[in-house]
């Protein structure tokens, strides 16, 4: 096992798959000599050449539309959105088109394509370099949506996504890129899309999260465990399909549920998790289903004080856990 960062795991996953299958290729702004602005394709143009590492013009809708068209021909494009904040011009090709191709041809035209999107905040990115964009994709039938939190999950899920014959939105939290390190096996492995992971077992209550926040949740669980609150932490990893079975099993065991995410509260992923529990685990619930999420403003501002005020963190989560545990 080697210790890697998330960005290294992402890069390795792509490199392995590109070596394995020459239908796999990357495209996006600055993916060439620059190696991507986060260096996720560093060294790729040297190894795979210009035809499989395509520096595109600055035009996101075309990046997605062209990737989609190449997927129609049977290639396996990995288009990159440089920052999540800049994907909005491209959503027609993703939500309007890619998601509907398989259903709209009654299964005759597969779309083997992975859209990589660095997202999220905590990096002084302000209103246009911090956005959480998962809710739209989470709500879109015909897409799969993956949001790993660790290098191990990132690598195994990205490799699965690349081999999937359906469009996958792959969300990489920018702050985890270099902050989060973890063991990654040398030997090849794949992780299944759609299966959540219980990152910490516990009995007092269930804490569901994903992405950067997962790490704060784990820290908060440690903090309150000293106080006798035994938190089970479920890492969704895949948002769509949502692993209802794992969530429900945990909630039925603990009787209490809290969801944490960085994205805005209203209409976020947490609402669905809560709704599923309130329906399908109703008889097991021992307390209100709670959410600790980003407040309902566009996203975190640039100023340090305001960014801090926006973001859930270990302390805020621990406090909310105590409150729910005491219910």
């Amino acid at each position, binding site marked *: 096992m080697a210790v890697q960062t998330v960005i290294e795991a992402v890069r390795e996953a792509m490199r392995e798959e590109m070596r394995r299958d020459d239908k796999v*290729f990357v495209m996006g702004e600055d993916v060439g000599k620059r190696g991507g602005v986060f260096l996720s394709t560093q060294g790729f143009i040297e190894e795979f050449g210009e*035809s*499989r590492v*395509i520096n*595109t*013009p600055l*035009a996101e*809708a*075309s990046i*997605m*539309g*062209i*990737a*989609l*068209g*190449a*997927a*129609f*021909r*049977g*290639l396996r*494009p990995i288009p990159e959105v440089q920052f999540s904040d800049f994907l909005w*011009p491209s959503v*027609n*090709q993703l939500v*309007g*088109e890619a998601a*509907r*191709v*398989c*259903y*709209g*041809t*009654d*299964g*005759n*035209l*597969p779309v083997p394509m992975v859209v990589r999107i660095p997202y999220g905040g905590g990096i002084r990115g302000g209103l246009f370099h911090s956005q959480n964009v998962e809710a739209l994709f989470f709500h879109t*039938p*015909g897409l*799969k949506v993956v949001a790993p939190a660790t290098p191990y999950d990132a690598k195994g899920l990205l490799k699965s996504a690349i081999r999937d*014959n*359906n469009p996958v939105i792959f969300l990489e939290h920018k702050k985890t890129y270099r902050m989060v390190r973890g063991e990654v096996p040398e030997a090849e492995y794949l992780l299944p899309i759609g299966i959540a992971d219980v990152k910490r077992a516990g009995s007092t209550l269930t804490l569901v999260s994903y992405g950067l926040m997962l790490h704060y949740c784990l820290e908060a669980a440690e903090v309150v465990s000293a106080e006798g609150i035994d938190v089970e932490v479920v890492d969704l990893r895949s948002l769509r399909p949502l692993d209802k079975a794992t969530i429900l099993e945990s909630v039925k065991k603990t009787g209490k549920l809290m969801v944490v995410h960085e994205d805005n509260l209203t209409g976020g992923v947490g609402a669905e998790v809560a709704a599923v529990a309130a329906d399908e685990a109703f008889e097991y619930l021992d307390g209100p289903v709670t959410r600790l999420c980003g407040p309902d403003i566009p996203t975190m501002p640039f100023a340090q004080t305001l960014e801090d005020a926006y973001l859930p963190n270990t302390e805020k989560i621990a406090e909310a856990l105590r409150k729910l545990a005491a219910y």
Partner: protein
Amino acid sequence: MTQARAPKRPRKNSAKGSAQADGLPQGLTSQDLVEYYSKMVMVRTMDERIWMLNRQGKVPISASAQGHEAAQLGSLLAARKDGDCFLFPYYRDLGIKMAAGLTPTEVMKSFMGKAGEPYSNARQFPLQGADLKHNIIQISNVVAAGLTQAVGYALGCRMMGEKTVVLVFFGDGASSQGETHEAMNFAGVHKVPVVFVCENNGYAISVPQSSQMAIADVASRAEGYGFPGVVVDGMDLVSVYEATREAIIHARAEGPVLLEMKVERFMPHTTDDDDRRYRPAEEVENLRQRDPVITMTAYMIEQGFLTQEQVEEIDAEAKRAINEATDAADAAALPDPSTLLDNLFVD
């Protein structure tokens, strides 16, 4: 419409001396013309029938191809003669989709939303989805969304070492969409083997060309992408065939071409539209003088490719086939509701 509709100046002279000894353009036989004339008559007959069936409540929606037939079939003919083309038509391309190889019954099932519809099994609007057997994809109704996809498809073919040229069709209205620009720009930079075919009928629903763009020819934009733009009379099948053929050859060898075919929309935008609100009735009447079916009939007889009798036979055969198709589609089953959730994903 303030602008003259007849093409003023083909950028490249598409008819330039490629004629064969028998007077037919390069690569064409009189057989081909008879075949495509018959297809044209079949398409027109279908189109008219569909409109009628809409008025009878049997067909929810149709965008008529009347006036566009020469453009659609001339392009298709060039693509088929070439033998290695893939097509991304748009919603008005009944001519292309039908003549590419569908039976009249399949087409009629599409319009009636019946099981076995060839593009989407009736999940989508008629003839929308994919007909891979005939090298055709059209995913959506979103105007201009197919252009970048077509560029990607062509790029993909090239990555696979193939010689395929992709033809993507769109209207004058579609030229305004941002994605049209993005598709052309990428294709220009990467010299992608794609022909952008604009069926310019001077209207986007009710919006005339003068409110859509401040220029006379969409084709003039090609220069801004570093590739050639060509204007052709889209009411004449042979001219369209020649221009498309040259464009395909150019695309394969050197990269994109923007081919603008000046056509006319004889009918309202769709069966849902009422064009009297925005278009004087005389305008359409005048346009009908240039009906591509009539023009081609005259040409076929004049050239001696068909006799008057044969023309009448072709007509009768089309009517018979469409009648039969109407009955067959009418009798066909609706999709089974239990299939509603199927095929959201492939394995």
